[in-house]
């Protein structure tokens, strides 16, 4: 079974074999990247977050044999990596603003690369709603898994998800089609 302790890939990861990490990349990188891009908004940050996930897996590889759901484990790692990266960028922006002695920008959303209408609308959501939406839609996680990851109740996760979709719908209605 993929992701179970019997999976040869998991055994390879625990043993620190590079080809196992390559297989893990082939299996998960695209989805992890899409989710990171959804949360962080830029390709560069998304790629860095994916790299952080793999480095984290190397560091914690001895514990992988006990992981029941590798998909949830990787998306939890991605969520933490994205949160760290977002916090670092926020601190950098604050520092730059302070150094320039200018008033802080009114919109703190990241500078977006050209992307689809949905992706741009996604970036207008509050980060806590965006995270839940991306983890559910791109990560395929259940509300229970998301709740455990974010240290909230499953009901709160579900509510955030619904609010996020409603907000997204209203943003899209206000945004003209391309």
């Amino acid at each position: 079974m993929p992701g179970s302790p019997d999976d040869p890939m998991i055994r390879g990861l625990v043993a620190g074999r590079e080809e196992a990490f390559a297989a893990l990349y082939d299996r998960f990188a695209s989805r992890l990247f899409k989710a990171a891009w959804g949360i962080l908004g830029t390709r560069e940050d998304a790629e860095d977050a994916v790299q952080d996930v793999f480095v984290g897996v190397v560091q914690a590889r001895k514990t992988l044999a006990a992981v029941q759901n590798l998909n949830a484990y990787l998306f939890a790692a991605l969520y933490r990596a994205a949160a760290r990266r977002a916090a670092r960028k926020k601190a950098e922006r604050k520092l730059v603003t302070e150094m320039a002695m200018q008033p802080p920008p009114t919109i703190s959303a990241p500078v977006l690369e050209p992307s689809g209408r949905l992706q741009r609308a996604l970036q207008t959501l509050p980060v806590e709603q965006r995270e839940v939406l991306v983890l559910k839609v791109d990560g395929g996680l259940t509300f229970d898994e998301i709740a455990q990851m974010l240290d909230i109740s499953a009901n709160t996760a579900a509510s955030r998800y619904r609010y996020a979709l409603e907000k997204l719908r209203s943003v899209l209605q206000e945004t003209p089609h391309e």
Partner: protein
Amino acid sequence: MNDDELPPDLARLEEELAARQSPAPGPELKGRVLQAVRRELTARSSRRILRSSLWRFAAATAATVALWLNLGMSATNDTVWDLHKNGHGSEGLAAAEYLRELVPEMSEAEARRQALLLKAGARLVLAPSFNNVSGIRGKQYLEDEPWPSY
């Protein structure tokens, strides 16, 4: 809550969101990630080797220190110093008693100390002073004193 509870328009939006276009990760990302993985694997094994080396070094140092302490203690315990005999033997005690007779207000401990000092200086060799050619007298040369000219 599950997805079945979503109204049709939100469910449709959810599907659109799942199918939204996303740029693929760059072709160089795999190489970069695997390089980072390799670096981390190497660094961890290097750290493990370094840690075990440090432990071995610490253990060897501790063993050496313990050995030298042990040897030092043994040598100290087995050495007969004879300090009493040499420092305050009959000769020293007699000198201290004599000093106390001369200076009664001197304490016994001070008299012993002075006797020891006198004994220590008893065998000093006198240094000749060439300035006084009529006779030899003891002179101490201090560091800042110029050497005598001939």
